[in-house]
Structure formats: C-alpha cells, structure tokens
C-alpha cells in the first residue's frame, strides 16, 4: 500500500474508481450471494485527517480490491444517535453485514444496544472493550501502539539537543498517558537526563489549541515534538515550522515536513482488515477479542527520515528486534511517577499485553505536566 498522502479529492476519485472496478469484478458472482459482502466503515472525523480516521480509511481502502467485497464509508459521524442511525442505514440501504464503527465512543451504548436487534450483522469495534457479557455478534480489536511510541522516543532522544522533548496530548486518559510515558522512556533509554513536557488540550480535535500548545512547547525549548490527538497534522506542521523535529502518530505524516520527520507510530489497519475479510470470505468468523502489536502487524513504524543519525538507527533497529522477539518491557520497577510516588515496585515487570497498563493514571518521573 502506498503511503503517499491523499488529498480528499484524490482519495474520492481513487475510491470511486476502485469501487467501480470492484462492482464490475463482482458482477459474475451476483448469483452466489454468499461470495459477496458489503462492509461499512464509520469514522468520527474526516477520513483525510492525517490521523486516526485516515489510518482506518487507508485500511478500508485496502479491502476495495478484494473480489466480492463492497466497501461503504461515512465520515464525521458523531457519538450520538447519529452513529446508531448510520449503522442502521448501512444495514437497511446498503445491505452491509459487517460493520466497522471505528471510534472508541461508538461502543457503549450505541453498538451494544443495536447489536441484539440485528443478529445477522457483525459489529467490529476498534477499542478492545468486548467482554463475555456483551452480544456475540459484536467483536473488538485494538493494537498495542505504545511500543511504537517507545521507538519514536528513541529517535527523539538521539535528535534532541536541548534534552527537552514535547508532547501535545488530548485528554489525560490511560491510553494517552501510556503513550506519553513510553515516549519519554524511549528517549531516556538514550539519555536519562531528558525530560518531556506535556500539554493537554482537553479535546480530541481542537486544531487551534493544538497549535497554541505546540508553540508553547517550542517556546519552552522542546526541540522534538509528538502528539496524541485525532489529527496530528496541525501539531506536525506547526512544530516543523518552528524548526523542531517531529515524530508522527496514527498515520504517516512525513509528507508534511520530510526533513524534520524522524519516524512515526502508525496503525496498520490495512493488514488487520485484510486478514479479517480473508477469514470471513473463507467462511470463518472473526474472534470476538483480537489484539496485536508490532509483531502481529497491528502497528508499524514510518520509514526513518533523513535526520535520524546512524547511532539512532542502530539503537532503533536493536530495540525493534527485541520487541519483535517478545518479552520486552518498558514498565518495570522500581518506577516513580512525577510527584515522587512509587508506582511500580522493584522487581515488578509489566509486558505490553498486561491488562494492568490499561488503567494507567500517572505520568512517570521526567514528564513535566499533570494529569489533572
């Protein structure tokens, strides 16, 4: 799959063409209904946001060349009755039998309340929330992206001269806190004197605040910046414009500033979705609870940029190999949070799959910022 950035127009043109090809190629199969599948993708923001939604839209685009598969998509669907009705509309008007409502907030109550009404439809939610008590026609998948952010941190640790790196974050929730901590711990694997300043914008998508936060971090002397917001485009452009290096998140943002882009932690939904669909088209079902990290191909790294030094490349490659091998851990005791409280006792080691990490509520020592 190409990683060139897509303009909305180009994307629409391309998808229209692909959809046409798909429609034509599926014609001979019309008599064998079981071989045809309509898949619906629902995004909370714009599908060309250089971020979370684009990562899923790229995954959806990867399905369009599969024979017998028709993809329908809808963007900017709110986590209100809007998403319930969009799902029903895809089922009723498009005949979709497999839905991917991709935003975290779609799950409870919207998917959980709709699923019992459409028992023949499969609801696959991105976020990893499914438990045994939930409907069986609902599934949940998610990726462990924190190790990819740790690799971002290694590149940042080598690139920073001021020994201060910056993080623009949406909300102080566990997923985000884990990424902030991993970014700093990656950098500290290079130089333990590095600190990471974090600014929370309070919103998943608030470009004005994101730009202000980025400028504030640059003013404070941070010379490598990354972000965890829905669409990191503004952060990347602003930081690069101020001369800082950038590490991407969600999708590949290198096209925004190729010289300043070190690497990025990307979702690899194209592979995940292709695997899912291959299984379904062969008559199988997707497991209700699926997760994976770098090793399983759920997440991937952007190609290293020209500003990444040879020393950084070596440490990056070594660490990546260790992660792929398994058993690698960044959260191990003794570890203190940034108020001096011990959060992981000596001898305790958390692997990336450890469920305890999913309720993380602290920032580790060396992060400048507060969770409240």
């Amino acid at each position: 799959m190409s990683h060139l950035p897509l303009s909305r127009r180009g994307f629409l043109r391309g998808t229209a063409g692909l959809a046409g090809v798909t429609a034509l190629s599926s014609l001979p199969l019309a008599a064998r209904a079981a071989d045809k599948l309509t898949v619906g993708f629902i995004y909370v923001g714009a599908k060309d946001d250089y971020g979370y939604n684009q990562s899923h839209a790229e995954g959806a685009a990867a399905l369009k060349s599969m024979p017998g598969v028709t993809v329908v998509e809808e963007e900017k669907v709110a986590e209100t009755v809007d998403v319930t009705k969009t799902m029903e509309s895809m089922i009723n008007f498009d005949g979709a039998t497999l839905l991917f409502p991709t935003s975290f907030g779609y799950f409870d109550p919207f998917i959980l309340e709709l699923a019992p009404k459409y028992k023949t439809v499969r609801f696959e939610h991105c976020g990893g929330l499914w438990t045994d008590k939930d409907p069986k026609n609902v599934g949940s998948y998610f990726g462990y992206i924190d190790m990819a952010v740790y690799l971002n941190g290694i590149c940042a640790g080598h690139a920073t001269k001021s020994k201060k790196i910056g993080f623009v974050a949406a909300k102080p929730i566990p997923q985000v806190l884990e990424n902030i901590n991993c970014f700093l711990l990656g950098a500290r694997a290079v130089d333990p004197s590095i600190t990471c300043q974090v600014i929370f914008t309070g919103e998943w998508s608030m470009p004005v605040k994101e730009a202000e936060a980025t400028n504030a971090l640059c003013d404070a002397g941070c010379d490598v910046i990354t972000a965890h917001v829905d669409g990191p485009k503004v952060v990347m452009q602003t930081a690069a414009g101020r001369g800082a290096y950038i590490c991407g998140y969600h999708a590949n943002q290198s096209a925004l500033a190729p010289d300043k882009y070190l690497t990025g932690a990307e979702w690899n939904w194209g592979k995940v979705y292709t695997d899912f669909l291959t299984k379904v088209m062969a008559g199988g079902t997707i497991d209700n609870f699926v997760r994976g990290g770098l090793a399983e191909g759920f997440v991937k790294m952007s190609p290293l940029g020209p500003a990444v030094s040879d020393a950084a490349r070596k440490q990056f490659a070594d660490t990546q190999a260790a992660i792929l091998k398994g058993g690698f851990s960044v959260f191990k005791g003794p570890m203190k949070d940034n108020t001096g409280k011990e959060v992981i006792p000596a001898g305790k080691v958390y692997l990336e799959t450890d469920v305890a990490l999913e309720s993380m509520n602290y920032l580790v020592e060396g992060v400048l910022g507060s969770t409240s």
Partner: protein
Amino acid sequence: MTDQAMARAQRRSGVDGLAPLARRAEGVVLPLGALAAGLALFGLLLLALGKSPVEFYALVYKAGFGTAFSWANTLSRAAPLLFAALCVALPARLGLVVIGGEGAIVLGGTATGALGVWLGGVPPALALPLMAAAGAAVGALWIGAVGALRHYRGVNETIASLLMAYIGIALMNHLIEGPLRDPASLNKPSTAPLPDALRVGDIPGMDVHWGLVVALVCCVLTWVLIERTTWGFAARIAGDNVRAAQVQGLPVGRLILGFTALGGAFAGLAGFFEVAAVQGSANASLAAGYGYTGILIAFLARQNPLAVIPVALLLAGFEASSGLVQRRMDLPDATILVLKAVVFVVILVSDTLYGRFRLFAPERWRRS
C-alpha cells in the same frame, strides 16, 4: 338598496372573507417559495459539480422520509432540535437573540446524569420527573442568567449566551472528567451509567424515544403561551417596542427573565433526554451541536413555535440523509451543511419580501 348595490356588497363581503386568509398565506407561501428556491439553487450547484440534483433529492427523500426506517431516523434526530429551537424562539418574542442553547443542553444533561446516579434506588416514577426537573432547572438558570444580565446590566444577550455556551461546555468537561467521573470510564470520561430503570424508552411501536412527544407538546404549549395568553401578548409588545411596553406598565423585567428561563428549561430538557434516552450517562458527546442547529430552525420558522415542528423535521431529514448521500454519490460530508446554509440564506433574504406583494395585502386590493 338597489340590486346593484346589494350585489356589490355581497361581492365585497366575499372578498373580505378572503382577507384574513390572504394575510396568513403570506407567512406560509413566502417561506415555502424560498425553500423551493433554495433547493433549486443548490441543485444548480450540484449540476456545476457534475452531479445529478434529481438523484440527490431522490436520495434525500429516500433516506429522510421514504421508508419507515427513514422516518424513525428523522424523528429521532428531530427531538433535541425541537427543544433547542424553542430556546431561541421564546426569547425572540421579546426581541432577544439568544444563541447559546448548547450550554443549557450540556449542563442540563450533566445535571441529569449526576442526579440519576444518586437516585439509583428511587422508583422511576419519582426519579425520572426529578431528573427531568433538574435538567430543566439547570437550563433555566443558565439561559435565565443571560436574561438577567441583559435586563439588569445591559449586557448583549447574543454575545453573553454564546460565550456562556463555551463556559457551559468547559464546565461539563471539568465535571465529567473530575468530580462526577465514573472511575471505570477509563478512556471516555463519563458519569456512572444510569440504572436501566432510569432510562427513558421508546414510544411503543416506534424506534423513537419519548423525547419527541414531549418536545411536540412543548411546541404547542409555547404557541398557546405566546398567542393565546396575556403574558404572550405582553411579550410581543415588549418585543416590538420595549419603551412603549414600559410606558404601559408591562413587567418587562419579569417577562425577560421568564421567557429566557423557560427557553433554557426546554434546552435543559433536551439534555435530559440525551442522557436518559440516548447516552445513558453524561459525557462529552452531549456537545453535539444541537443548540446551534436550533438557531437555524427557529429563524427558518420565523420564531413561531408551531412552524418550528415542520422545519425541525425537514432539517432532521436532511441530516438523516447525509450518510446515504455520502455513500451513494461520493459527495463529502459537508454537502448537507452547504444545503442547509443555502436554504438558510435564501429564506433570510426572503424576509425582505414581506409586504411587497399586493396579493397578501387585502387593504391594497381595492385601489386597483
């Protein structure tokens, strides 16, 4: 009386019988004409983009009004919009332009969520009215405060209500991420989920929650208040000329406070239903922009609480069709937004046409 004179008198009375009808017709024909013109204009825009307006409107009809599912879709979207539009239409009768209903919606919803958790063991027949009252009361305080600022301090109500909407959203975020947060809501901060008994269900036989019925009743009651009571009459006078109303001894201050608070209470009810019927807890999704769509609806309905109903249904139908239009015609999500904007501007422009047509002005019929 000669036969001739009698015939003339008869003819005149026949014409006079039409006069009230003609006056009322202006308020219906002009907006409908403007709506048609707006849709036609947008059709031209589509043609310029190389898309078929016929296909577009067929899809809008199909997804908004064409099937039972489409109606359920449209009606569920209309419920909060009706409340939000009343929050604009009521103060408008006093000449106040209040555009901050969003703040009252999110805070009304937050109050509902917080109280609902606290009332866990109370019977629903008691708890639900209490929750609704709490939502309405918080909304009434919020928009009533805008009215008070206007009356006692001369603060512009438009700016004040808009800015207070931002404060309201920030306050909601603070509460649901701080004091009211359910510790189990890890990655989407929310209040604790309401017990199932305290959820508002659907209207029997329909896939639409009870908020729609309550909203429709509120629209009718508001119309009665404005058109059929002395309070409404006084408000209309104050809206036309506040000095004249004061000279007449009308209680302008109390009218302003009462009407803004009542409008806010309706917006608060929208928040109550969002939490109790849709979300099941108070969270950031309460700020879904209903308050802003309500402004559009109230203006298109010329601030008439009954006209709000068809306009809200129309706009809800547009929104219900947004998805199908995206999927079938490869148009961007903003298409429906542009359609709404075009219709809005054309209807606003049509305001300048009132009183220009002799057809609707019986007093000018005889001059020709």
